[in-house]
C-alpha cells in the first residue's frame, strides 16, 4: 500500500504529532536505515503523497518496564542495632576463605579479562601447521632492531554498532534530517545506582525539591532526636540496680564520694557491705546499750511521760519497796506511752520516713528502685473526679447541638428566613414569566418546572415540598434528623421588585448560583 519513497519535506507537521514515539524511534535506529514514518492505513486520510511504511518495529507496542531493585539491601535495625538485610532472604556472601572448594578457581577464571587485539592471520584448519607463527628467520637477517612491546596487546576493539546517522552519502535532498543520534551518556551517580541496584534514595537528590512549609528538624514535635550517647533504643540504657541507684543518690547528697559519675559495681558492693556492717554495728551498739542500762532506761526513750528514775538501782529499790518486778514496772511505764510514740518505737508507721536518704531521693530514682505507683504509673492516669465525661450517646455520629451554630457562623447553612428572603428576591423574574403566561401556568400543573411551582406556592401560600427539597439539597442531614425544621411553614415571599438594599444583599452572594448545579435547569 505504501510506497517506499520518502518524502520528508512534504510530510505535514501534523504527521509527527501522531507518533509520540517518533523521536524515540529516530534515535534508536541503526545506521543506514533511514527512519521512516509509521504508515497508517489508507483510510485514515487521503494524502497527496504516499504513506511511508516504517520498518517492522514494534517498539511502540512494547511497554518497557524496568524493575528496579530496592534502594537498599541492608539497613540498620532499630531494635538490634545491627545491619539487617532488607529482604531477609539470605545472609551476605561469605569471604573467600569460606568458599567451597573450587569456587575460587572458577571465580578467577571468570574474572580473567578477555584477550584483546585483532589477528592479522587467519587459521588454516590443520592444513598448514605453523602458518601463524611469525617467521623470524627473514626478519632477523634484516638486522633491524625490532622494538619490544612487553605490554599486553591492544585493548579490545570496540565494535561500532551504531554509527551516526549522518547520511553522508545521501545525494538526494529528499531525506529528512533527523536528529542526530543521541549520544549515550554514561549514567553516573544516582542513575547508575538505580540501574545497578546499589542503595540509593528514593528520589534523585539532584531533582529533589524540599517540601515547602516544613519546619526545621528541631521544631518538629515528632522529631526523633538521637540520644546523645548514641544508643539505639532506650532499652540499652543502664539498668538500675537498687544498690547502684541508692549509692548514686547517696553520692548526690554528698554522703559518699564516688570516683566517677556512676557508681561502679565495685563501689556498689563496697558500700553495700559497708552499710550492712554499719547497720550491724549499730544494732549491736543498741543491744549493748540495752544490756548496759537495762530495759527500763532503754525504753524510756520512747516514753516521754515517764519521768521517774530508770536506773537499775531505782528499779531494784522499787522492787524491794513494792514487790513489782522489772516487767511490771515496764508495763506500767508503757501505759504512759502515747500511741504515736508507740508507732515511732515500733517503726511501723509508714508516714514516718525511716530513712532520711529516701526522703532526699529523686522521684525518678525512687521509681527505679521501688517502682512507681502500680495503679497510676504516670500522671496521665490520674483522673479528675469532677470531670465531665464525654458520654457519647447512640446518635454519636450526629453533630453536637453546637455544630449548628458553628455552621451558621461560617455561613455553611442559612436559616429558613434567609432562604426565603433569597427566594423572594428571585421572585421578580418569575413574576414576569407568570404574568405573561398566566393562563398557561394555571392550566398545567404537572410539577415539572420548579420555578412555576414556586409561583404557585406563592400564590397559594402553601407549603411546598420543593422548597424543602431545595433546602434539603442545599443543607445536609441536619434537616433530616430534626423533624422540627421539616415542619416549618414557608414564610411569605416578598413581592415586588427588589429594593436597592436587597440587591446589594443579593450581590454579595453572586456566586451562589454557581454552586447550585442542580438548581439550574
Amino acid at each position, binding site marked *: 500500500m505504501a510506497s517506499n519513497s520518502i518524502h520528508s519535506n512534504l510530510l505535514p507537521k501534523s504527521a509527527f504529532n501522531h507518533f509520540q514515539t517518533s523521536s524515540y524511534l529516530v534515535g534508536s535506529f541503526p545506521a543506514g536505515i533511514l527512519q521512516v514514518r509509521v504508515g497508517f492505513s489508507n483510510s485514515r486520510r487521503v494524502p497527496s503523497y504516499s504513506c511511508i511504511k516504517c520498518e517492522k518495529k514494534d517498539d511502540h507496542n512494547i511497554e518497557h518496564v524496568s524493575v528496579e531493585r530496592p534502594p537498599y539491601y541492608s539497613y540498620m535495625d532499630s531494635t538490634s542495632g545491627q545491619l539487617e538485610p532488607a529482604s531477609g532472604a539470605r545472609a551476605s556472601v561469605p569471604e573467600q576463605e569460606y568458599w567451597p572448594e573450587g569456587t575460587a578457581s*572458577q571465580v578467577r577464571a571468570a574474572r*580473567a579479562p578477555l584477550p584483546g587485539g585483532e589477528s592479522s592471520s587467519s587459521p588454516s584448519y590443520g592444513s598448514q*601447521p605453523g602458518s*601463524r607463527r611469525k*617467521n*623470524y*628467520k627473514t626478519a632477523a637477517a634484516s638486522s633491524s632492531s*625490532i622494538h619490544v612491546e612487553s*605490554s599486553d596487546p591492544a585493548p579490545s576493539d570496540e565494535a561500532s554498532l551504531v554509527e551516526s546517522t549522518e547520511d553522508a552519502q545521501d545525494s538526494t535532498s529528499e531525506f529528512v534530517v533527523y536528529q542526530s543520534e543521541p549520544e549515550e551518556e554514561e549514567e553516573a551517580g544516582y542513575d547508575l545506582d538505580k540501574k545497578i541496584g546499589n542503595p540509593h534514595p528514593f528520589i534523585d537528590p539532584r531533582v529533589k525539591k524540599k517540601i515547602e512549609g516544613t519546619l526545621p528538624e528541631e521544631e518538629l514535635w515528632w522529631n526523633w532526636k538521637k540520644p546523645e550517647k548514641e544508643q539505639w533504643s532506650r532499652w540499652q540504657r543502664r539498668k538500675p540496680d537498687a544498690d547502684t541507684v541508692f549509692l548514686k543518690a547517696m553520692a548526690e547528697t554528698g554522703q559518699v564520694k564516688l570516683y566517677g559519675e556512676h557508681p561502679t559495681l565495685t563501689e556498689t558492693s563496697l558500700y553495700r557491705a559497708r552499710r550492712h556492717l554499719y547497720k550491724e554495728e549499730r544494732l549491736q551498739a543498741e543491744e549493748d546499750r540495752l544490756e548496759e542500762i537495762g530495759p527500763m532506761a532503754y525504753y524510756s526513750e520512747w516514753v516521754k511521760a515517764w519521768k521517774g528514775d530508770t536506773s537499775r538501782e531505782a528499779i531494784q529499790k522499787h522492787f524491794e519497796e513494792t514487790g513489782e518486778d522489772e516487767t511490771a514496772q515496764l508495763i506500767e511505764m508503757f501505759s504512759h506511752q502515747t500511741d504515736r510514740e508507740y508507732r515511732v518505737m515500733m517503726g511501723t508507721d509508714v508516714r514516718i520516713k525511716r530513712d532520711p536518704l529516701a526522703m532526699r531521693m529523686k522521684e525518678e530514682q525512687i521509681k527505679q528502685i521501688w517502682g512507681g505507683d502500680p495503679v497510676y504509673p504516670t500522671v496521665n492516669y490520674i483522673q479528675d473526679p469532677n470531670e465531665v465525661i464525654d458520654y457519647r450517646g447512640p446518635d454519636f455520629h450526629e453533630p453536637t447541638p453546637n455544630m449548628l451554630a458553628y455552621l451558621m457562623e461560617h455561613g455553611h447553612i442559612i436559616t429558613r428566613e434567609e432562604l426565603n428572603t433569597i427566594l423572594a428576591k428571585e421572585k421578580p423574574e418569575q413574576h414576569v414569566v407568570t404574568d405573561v403566561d398566566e393562563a398557561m401556568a394555571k392550566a398545567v400543573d404537572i410539577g415539572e418546572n420548579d420555578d412555576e411551582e414556586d409561583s404557585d406556592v406563592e400564590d397559594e401560600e402553601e407549603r411546598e415540598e420543593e422548597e424543602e427539597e431545595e433546602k434539603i439539597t442545599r443543607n445536609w442531614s441536619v434537616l433530616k434528623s430534626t423533624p422540627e425544621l421539616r415542619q416549618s411553614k414557608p414564610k411569605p415571599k416578598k413581592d415586588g421588585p427588589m429594593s436597592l438594599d436587597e440587591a446589594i444583599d443579593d450581590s454579595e452572594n453572586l456566586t451562589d448560583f454557581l454552586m447550585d448545579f442542580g438548581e439550574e435547569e
Partner: protein
Amino acid sequence: MASPLLHQPTQFFFSNTQLKGPSHGFLWRPPCSSFGASHSENKARPIRASVDAPTFPLFQTPKQHDSASELEPADPDFYKIGYVRSMRAYGVEFKEGPDGFGVYASKDVEPLRRARVIMEIPLELMLTISKKLPWMFFPDIIPIGHPIFDIINSTDPETDWDLRLACLLLYAFDCEDNFWQLYGDFLPSADECTSLLLASEDELSELQDPDLASTMRNQQYRAQEFWEMNWHNSAPLKIKRLARDPRRFLWAVGIAQSRCINMQTRIGALTQDANMLIPYADMLNHSFEPNCFLHWRFKDRMLEVLINAGEQIKRGDEMTINYMSGQKNEILMQRYGFSSPVNPWDVIKFSGNAKIHLDSFLSVFNISGLPEEYYHNKCLAIDGDTFVDGAVVAAARTLPTWSDKDVPPIPSAERMAVKELQQECRQMLAQYATTSKQDEKLLDSLPNAPRTLEAAIKYRLHRKLFIEKVIQALEIYQDKILF
C-alpha cells in the same frame, strides 16, 4: 629494558648482572675477544640456562637485548582461541622471539608461600593417550569410527607412544571443529621444527656425535617405516590425507616427541599415566632451574601451570619448567631437539685414574647440596662471581673424584690429577673436527640455516663449550687449592 642495540654479531655480549630476562647459557662471544676474558664477562647470575625446546619455542639467543627487543607479543588469536574454550592465563603472556614462542610474566609476582597458578588448560583441549593398555578410557581421544583407530591400536603403547600421539595429532588436524586445527597454526612448522627427525644426513653428521646420529637415524627410520606401513597406496583416503608425505608424518612425530607431557592424571577415581599434548603448556621453555611446574587439577580436570612457591618473578621473566630432569644433552637433543651448554647433568666420560678431591672442588666453587642436587650457593660466593653455572655443576658430577671423609687432599697430587684431566679434555676437544670458535663462526655465517642444522651445530658447540668450561674450572680449582 634492553638497550636497543643493533643486531650486530660483534656486540652480543653483556656482562650485565642486572639481567632480568631469561638468562641464557649459550653465549655468543665476539670472535675477537680472548678465550679467558670472555668467560669472565660471563653474565647472568643464575646457573640456570633457559634453553628452549626448539620445537616449541625455539632456542632463544642469549643476547639480552636480542631477547628483549625481538620479543613480540604473539598473535592475539593464540590466546583467544583458548580463552573461548575456557583456558586461562593469569599474569602471563605469550611472546614470540626469533627462536619461537615463550611464556613471559606480564607483571611482578612477589614470592608467595603457595604456588600460584599462571595457566590452566581444560582437558577438552588436550590430546591424550594412555600409556598402558587398554586404550579405552577417558580422557583418551579415541577416534572410534576412523580407520586411524586401528592403526593406533596396532602399535605397542610401551614403545610407540610417539607414533600413537603423532597419529592422534594428525587425526585432530583433520577433525572438524577440533581445537588443534586452530592451534596447529601456532606449532612450529616443518621448517621451523628443530627435531632431528627431520634432519638430513649431513645435518646429522654435523652433530659430530656418532652415537646420537645413529640414534636419530634409527628413529627416523622407524617413523618412516611406520608411515610406509600404514600410509601405503591403498590406504583409505581418510588416512591418506592425514599425512600425504612422510615428511609431514615425521614432523608430527617430532612434535609429539618434543611436546609430549607425561602426566599421571586422575579422572574421577581412575589414575592413569597418559601422554598428553597440552596446548598452551607446551609453549613453556625448558630450564634447569625452572620457576614453574605442572599440576593436574582433577576437580575440574584442568592442567595447571604453577609458579614455584617462593619464586620472585619480575615482569618479563620467562616461565620455564623442567622437561626432563637428570639427563645429559644427548637425551635432550634426541627427545626435544635442543641442547644446553650448562646442563648440570651432562656427562663426560673420563678414562684413566686421575681423581680430584671432591670436597675441595665443591668448596672452591661454592657448590653445595647433595650429589643429586648440586647447586651454586650464592650466599657463600663472593658477589659478582658468575663463573659457576650449570656446566661447573656438571663438572662436579662427572669429573672423577674421590672423597674419603676428612682425609685432606695433597696439593701436588691434586694438581697432577688436574693436569691429567685437563689433558684428557683437551684430547677430547681435539678429536672434534672443529673448535668451538669455528662453530660459532659457522653459526654466525649462516643466518638462514635450516633449524635442524642450527640445532646440530649448536649441539656440538655446546658440547665443546662444556668441555672448555671443565678445563677452565679445573684451572681455577688448581689455582685455588689451599696449601
